[in-house]
């Protein structure tokens, strides 16, 4: 399979790097010189050439060391991909017209297979139209600051991703009062504030929240007029995908909108939504959340399963079978049977994933199984 490239006949080993490229069900393997990767344009041409698809527009993606699928679309991330590839650079190509942008970088290794299935089954995502204006950038959607472009500069909207991490959210809230400018002059109004951060928690380790930040919204719903207990309940109910809009106590680190650079990590897909009001944001989040939170049922057969939607999409999973076998073991995923309950039938596994093609109807439109 190995094809010599650019007359690189010399020493194998440190200077050259193996590339495995996949388009549809086809694989190509070739090698690159690590020290002279060249420009992205050239690489793109090379890929079109080896796959014999000279006139097909494709999206180029690679899996990084964390197993995340990241795009290659400029020299910078091309070089990054080459320099970090160890030992193999895995490339995935998608037709541009039916590409699924959300497949990129969605999550960590444990979900790799689903990421793959995204790539392989682009038609699986018709139900979730993502309006993409710009190309997705090189970022990993962990906890982040979002909606910078639609919020006042004094506010900050923070998304805390609970899944994929064992870290606790790790913060406390309290009652307090803030001073507002109103038509009647300055007024003290009651508010909810961050009172404490737990060391090592998500809030503290991401640095997105700070003590004395005032909480304005929780998942798009304003907290003014709500009691501390109500806000607590709302946050806990949304704890799997918690989006808090705060007025930071320290206003010096605010994102200045006009100086935004293209690689800014302060952006997410949400920011490119044509949305401008919190309400629409809430809608969007709500819709997205639907797939985020699914219950588990254990039938008497003893197999824990995710509870499907009652109107199944009945998508074919045939393409799944084309995944190379070693991929799934590489993912390191095994259904755990650690928690043995009294009943022999009952073993719950929180991180259960579909492996058996028989369980077709379990696939969701979101495929992202977030447990």
């Amino acid at each position, binding site marked *: 399979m190995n094809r010599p490239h650019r007359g690189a006949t010399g020493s194998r080993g440190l200077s050259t790097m193996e590339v495995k490229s996949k388009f549809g069900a086809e694989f190509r393997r070739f090698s690159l010189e690590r020290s002279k990767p060249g420009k992205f344009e050239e690489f793109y041409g090379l890929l079109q050439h080896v796959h014999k698809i000279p006139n097909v527009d494709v999206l180029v993606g690679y899996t990084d060391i964390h197993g995340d699928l990241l795009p290659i679309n400029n020299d910078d991330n091309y070089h990054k991909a080459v320099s970090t590839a160890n030992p193999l650079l895995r490339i995935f190509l998608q037709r541009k017209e039916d590409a699924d942008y959300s497949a990129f970088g969605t999550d960590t290794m444990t979900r790799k297979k689903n990421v793959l299935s995204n790539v392989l089954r682009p038609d699986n995502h018709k139900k979730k139209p993502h309006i993409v204006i710009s190309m997705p950038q090189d970022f990993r959607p962990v906890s982040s600051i979002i909606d910078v472009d639609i919020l006042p500069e004094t506010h900050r909207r923070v998304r805390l991703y609970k899944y994929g991490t064992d870290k606790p959210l790790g913060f*406390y809230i309290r009652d307090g009062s803030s001073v507002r400018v109103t038509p009647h002059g300055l007024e003290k109004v009651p508010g909810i504030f961050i009172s404490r951060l737990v060391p090592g928690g998500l809030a503290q380790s991401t640095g997105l929240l700070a003590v004395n930040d005032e909480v304005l919204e929780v998942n798009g719903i304003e907290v003014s007029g709500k009691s501390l207990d109500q806000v607590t309940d709302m946050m806990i*109910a949304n704890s799997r995908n918690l989006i808090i809009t705060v007025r930071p106590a320290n206003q010096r680190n605010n994102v200045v909108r006009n100086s935004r650079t293209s690689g800014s990590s302060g952006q997410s897909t949400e920011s490119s939504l044509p949305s401008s009001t919190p309400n629409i944001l809430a809608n969007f989040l709500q819709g997205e959340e639907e797939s985020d939170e699914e219950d588990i049922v254990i*039938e008497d057969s003893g197999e824990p399963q995710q509870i499907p*939607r009652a109107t199944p999409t009945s998508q074919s999973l045939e393409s799944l079978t084309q995944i190379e076998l070693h991929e799934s073991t590489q993912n390191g995923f095994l259904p755990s049977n650690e928690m043995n309950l009294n009943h022999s039938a009952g073993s719950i596994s929180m991180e259960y994933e579909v492996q058996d093609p028989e369980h077709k109807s379990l696939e969701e439109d979101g495929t992202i199984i977030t447990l």
Partner: protein
Amino acid sequence: MRRFLRPGHDPVRERLKRDLFQFNKTVEHGFPHQPSALGYSPFLRLMAIGTRSGAIKLYGAPGVEFMGLHEENNTVMQIHFIPDQCQLVTLLDDNSLHLWSLKQHSGTSELREEHRFTLKGPPGSPPSATQVTAVLPHSSREVLYLGTESGNIFLVELPSFRVLEDRTITSEAVQQRVPEDYCNRRSCELVEALREHPKNPDQILIGYSRGLIVLWDLQNNKVTHHFLGSQQLENLYWQRDGSKFISCHYDGSYTQWPVSSDNRQPEPLENVVPYGPFPCKAISKIYWQTTKNGLPYIIFQGGMPRASYGDRHSISVVHGSQQTAFDFTSRVIDFFIIFSSEPTAEFDDPSAMVVLAEEELVVIDLKTPGWPAVHPPYLASLHCSAITCSHHVSNIPLKLWERIISAGSKQNIHYSNMPWPIDGGTNVAPDPPQRDLLLTGHEDGTVRFWDASGVCLHLLYKLSTVRVFLTDADPNDNMNALGEDEWPPLRKVGTFDPYSDDPRLGIQKIYLCKYSGYLAVAGTAGQVLVMELNDEDAEHVVDHAEADLLQDQEGYRWKGHEKLKTRDGPVRFEAGFQPFVLVQCQPPAVVTSLALHSEWKLVAFGTSHGFGLFDHQQKRLVFVKCTLHPSDQLALEGPLSRVKSLKKSLRQSFRRIRRSRVSSRKRRGASGNASEVQEANAKFDQEALQEMELAPVQRKIEARSAEDSFTGFVRTLYFADTFLRDSSRHCPSLWAGTNGGTVYAFCLRVPPAERRMDEPVRAEQAKEIQLMHRAPVVGILVLDGRSTPLPEPLEVAHDLSKSPDMQGSHQLLVVSEEQFKVFTLPKVSSKLKLKLTALEGCRVRKVTVANFGSCKTEDYSENDLAVLTNLGDIQIISLPFLKLQIRYPCIRKEDVSGIASCVFTKYGQGFYLISPSEFERFSLSTKWLVEPRCIVDIPEVISNNHMHNKSGMENAARKS
């Protein structure tokens, strides 16, 4: 996502909603919290009770009741009906006077506040100058006499509350002709009592606190008689013919004074200290009632020997040689005597004594020998022992109803047969549409059965579970065991008894099957009793079974309370519900959920450790399931009981005090006193509270996890005959929901009736659902093929419900504190959900299916969910589509006990506790409303007496 697209207002649905739903707080049941004043109108035959929160409630014949609330929310100090009027005056502790009227409006009477007034003194005068201490509505109905702290008596005109300044009776004018040596000692006295002469409306008797009593002539504006009392005065009472009056005093004595035209400064006829010779407490009120046979009734409040009985709340009735000191369970607020009010009648002939104590109303029949108590049709003391849970059963079959009433009547034989003496007004409300039972479980191990069909919440029957157990209560500890020659002749009356013998007896869950008469009750120490209704007394052994919910979990130690000890051998039970089997959960943690299926003869119960199923036909445990997370130490050890330990120890000390009061009657200066303990306790609470306030209130934000405490706590149990395994065969099933968001489903095999005793009931776990949001599961329900909730057991057998649709596919509704979710069955796939907490920040506290009928069309009704949230809002959510229909604020969100106590009925009504002793009844339905509708007519009164009054007043007015 579609939920957020503003649902197009469907005008048809909106109109239907108006025909179905409407929120009303309809009536308050039970005994008013903290009563502070009592009034009675012999003319209207209505009684009025005022409270410390400014409420005023009027009661007449059963079903006749009115309620008013003073805006100020101040304590009502006094209530006086205007003679022969539908009006009354209240005095509040802010010294304001309020005039209330009963006015007819569209077929019913309504209580309305007409005027308010505060007496104002001249500028610069001290507030005491106008502080009202005594109120006398004159029989002319035109003036009020207001005695004040300064000793002056002001006249105000009714209904305008205009002060007639020129007719003020000043203390100077009164003291003019009082002997100097007497007068000097007593200046600046407050007016303690004002009494109009029973025959001559132109004379009023004025009593000052230092002992001086004068008879004032209204026509001539002068004193006609002086009565020089030597003791501090408490109250006055005229004899019916006006020839004598009686005064009672602070030192526990009462004195009779003659009134005749020849002696203007008479000496007392008689001075008696009824419970002397040792120092006695004050007699605060006294009645002197004449009878045909000549022997008067002397009825007085207090007067007990200060040292040995000073803590008793007593009213003594003396009639010839008969004397009884009624000993009340709480402080006496006030009392009145119902006697012949005919102006022409020669004698008082008292028929009943009505006593308002702080915690209950007691009525004593004075006509029947032995003076038995009368069973009140309303104002029941719900809290005679603290309410621990409630259960409502709608539409009781007549047969069961009659059997419960008959069991209850056997318990009430010691009550008087006298018809209820307070019988004013007419109840015009339609008869209640159905027979409803409200069952309350109490801390002392009793269950009370209340007739909740109408406006009057009436006790039908009281069930005690105590007999099954051995408690440390001394069976010989009889409060009424008094010998013949005991003095004072105390007799305990009333039912209020907040001291529980053993908190483990407390009832936590109740389930009554109205068709079979099976009743299951479960308590604080893990006891589950199944009972059957028996119309006769019976003596039998209660079968006993243990359910070890920790089965295979090794090495855990329960640190909570012990299980209750059971009585060995046969136990005698009175007619009514008699327990036949006791299932004891191990560890003996509080039972948190209970379900009974009378057709399958199964009872399911759950605690913080797990749940079990018991076959009460074969008396065999079917299975147990441990739901405990292995790391959940808190639930294992039973912290719930540790929290209660302070309360328990307090209760025990109360009990000790109460015992010592009885047994050491002769011992002087008993070691403690309940009020002191209470005070100390209150102080402790306050300190603890202040300490808590110093720490800033913080809330931790964290996702729930499987390792959280009390995830295994079983919150709900549900029996259903549904499609659990496959869609072709349905089978009996048991569902359980836990605090950690897990739902377990067990498939049951119940042998057919003919082999029911021979084959065992089998159970097998069929499903386990873990809700990812892990919120506590508070309700589970199966909807049939027509999306109608499955009927109750035996409901179909009794032709009271259509058979469920077993053709179409069933659906499972799981209600957690945060979300409502519908799943398909038998394959569990999620179909619909409604998120509550994530969007509104409120949580589900109570949920029930309620049937709502349209007030417009007879034949339309639908099932919806009635939901109470932790913010005290009530929401109605449609079935099966989970659409929010309407929302009403109902309970203040701070009122945690009110929210916790709420029960919904099957037809869209509900009850919640507004105080330990009162249920508020509310209705969400347009069709099922139970509210008082009554009329108070002014009885025709044309008597010479009034004509005379009128002219007398006119004369007086002209003269002044």
